[in-house]
């Protein structure tokens, strides 16, 4: 490799070196070269000045009014999101609770109507199917209504 290529190879490293983005080996080699090459060192100074200049560009600041407005809106959105999460958790809990209650109510019905042994009866009567179907449809209908109401509510809030 001739001297010119060698210099060019090192100069190709200058942009990343000015951004402190070289690996340690490249950094060491470049450092060694710069100590022995005044022309590359002068060129490197210009790159370093550019990097320093970039770090010193004045920082534009948002207006206090914008920050305050953003804070208010974001707080409202955060409360809304928390409320939404809470409502969803309560809804899920209620749904599970209702299903448990529904399932538990059948043995109670049997107990009340057929005595203690009726509770252990594993044969499902036709009444159980009708009961389960009715409860499933009721809960599915309730769930769908809740989902539709929630969607409508969210849409109304978005356009408000």
């Amino acid at each position, binding site marked *: 490799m001739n001297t010119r290529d060698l210099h060019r190879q090192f100069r190709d490293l200058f942009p990343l070196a000015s951004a402190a983005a070289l690996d340690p080996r490249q950094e060491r080699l470049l450092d060694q070269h710069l100590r022995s090459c005044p022309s590359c060192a002068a060129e490197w100074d210009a790159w370093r000045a550019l990097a320093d200049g970039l770090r010193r560009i004045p920082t534009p600041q948002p207006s206090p009014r914008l920050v305050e407005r953003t804070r208010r809106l*974001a707080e409202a959105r955060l409360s809304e999101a928390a409320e939404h999460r809470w409502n969803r958790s309560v809804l899920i809990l209620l749904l599970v609770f209702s299903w448990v209650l529904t399932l538990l109510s059948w043995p109670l019905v049997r107990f009340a109507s057929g005595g203690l042994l009726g509770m252990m009866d594993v044969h499902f009567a036709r009444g159980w199917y009708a009961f389960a179907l009715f409860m499933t449809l009721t809960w599915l209908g309730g769930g769908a209504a809740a989902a539709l109401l929630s969607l409508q509510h969210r849409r109304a809030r978005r356009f408000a």
Partner: protein
Amino acid sequence: MSAITCAWEGLVGLQGEVAQLRRGNLDALSQLIARYQNRLYRYLLRLVRNPAEAEDLFQQTWLRVAEKISSFDPRRNFDSWLFTVARNLALDHLRRIRPHSLDEPFASDSGSETPADRLLSREMLPLDRILESERSGRLAAALLELPVVYREVVSLRFEEEMKLEEIAQVLGAPLSTVKSRLRRSLEQLRLSLESRGGPGEWS
């Protein structure tokens, strides 16, 4: 020693604020907005170059943060996550309003003021700072003329002082891409400055 202590305290403070925000604490939200307001606004302004659009995106970013903070993985770096949210919103906005602006440099309009010019002209500066300000103004103007993919990488590295790995996270790109963009952006910036000012401090 004290700088390390400050940095450590800052990191612990930040993690505490993020954890509080995830629990829905409104004070934590205010503290985070105060902590990031200048950096985030500057980054958005570098991306979209228009103060009104940057303000709108600043607001949208924090609204998105309030919405999505519960899904934020606390093991992730909050800086990277926040700047990714801001970047996605800004790029969507640019695609919507100026589809060409993601690939091409800004149309040269030397007569119009840049945000940096406006910032510099807000107050009268002492004589010994005017030269430095002019130099910064020229540099900021040259930076704003770079294509957005180059602008953002320079801003994240030099202004936000992010590590290359953090920049890769924000950009969703490999480290090699970040390095090549950084290199090209600096070369282009240098050429642009040389063509503007002739021989000077950057040539």
